[in-house]
């Protein structure tokens, strides 16, 4: 439980899941579990050309870091990497990545899920749809289920 390695990045560029995992596991022989969650852009029945993600610089990072730090306190997590992209993202492309490493699987699974549940409702990001037919796209509505998902941890 000493020296947990927590990395949070908010970036325009895509990320490489394998490379990010390697940063957490390279040279380590004590890690028994790696849980990875990646969120991708859905095309919504081929109607969307992209999702545009707006964020609040500074607060986006601090809210993700708060969730990651809480998870690291709550479970014996060795490493936690969270990357969230902003800007225009095409269907099929990656939006968010959470990797949690631990000795055993429960902490890795739970830690990754906890971070995602809090990130969804607390990190200041907003998605706007860009439609293929050129019509003005909608801002994606917040989902009640996301608020409820967070309550599982209280």
């Amino acid at each position, binding site marked *: 439980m000493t020296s947990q390695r927590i990395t949070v990045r908010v970036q325009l560029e895509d990320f490489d899941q394998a490379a990010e995992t390697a940063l957490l596991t390279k040279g380590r022989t004590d890690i028994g579990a790696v849980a990875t969650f990646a969120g991708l852009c859905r095309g919504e029945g081929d109607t969307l050309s992209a999702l545009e993600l707006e964020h609040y610089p500074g607060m986006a990072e601090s*809210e993700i870091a708060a969730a990651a730090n809480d998870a690291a306190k709550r479970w014996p997590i060795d490493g936690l990497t969270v990357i*969230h992209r902003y800007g225009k993202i095409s269907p099929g492309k990656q939006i*968010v990545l959470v990797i949690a490493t631990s000795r055993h699987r429960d902490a890795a699974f739970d830690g990754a899920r906890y971070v995602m549940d809090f990130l969804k409702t607390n990190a*200041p*990001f907003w998605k706007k749809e860009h439609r293929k037919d050129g019509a003005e796209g909608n801002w994606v509505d917040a989902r009640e289920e*996301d608020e409820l998902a967070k309550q599982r941890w209280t």
Partner: protein
Amino acid sequence: MAGVDTTIRYFSWVRERVGKGEEQVVLPDTIVTVMDLLMWLKQRDDGFGAALEFPEIIRVALDQEHVDHTKNVGTPREIAIFPPMTGG
């Protein structure tokens, strides 16, 4: 807080409806709570009226920390006003 400029930032459809991403304002002394602030902004013009039509769903951050509408505004350097978040 009288006479002090505060930066207010707007995001997502709140930004689109008010027609700007940020501004400097001098908050009147009559504003005590976050809800007072939202009600004051709402009556400024039609854009603010549309953005803050349902103030109860609007989220507010003071110096990048989420706050409830019942909280006192105090003297933050930066206020942010935005819809529920949809990241991830």
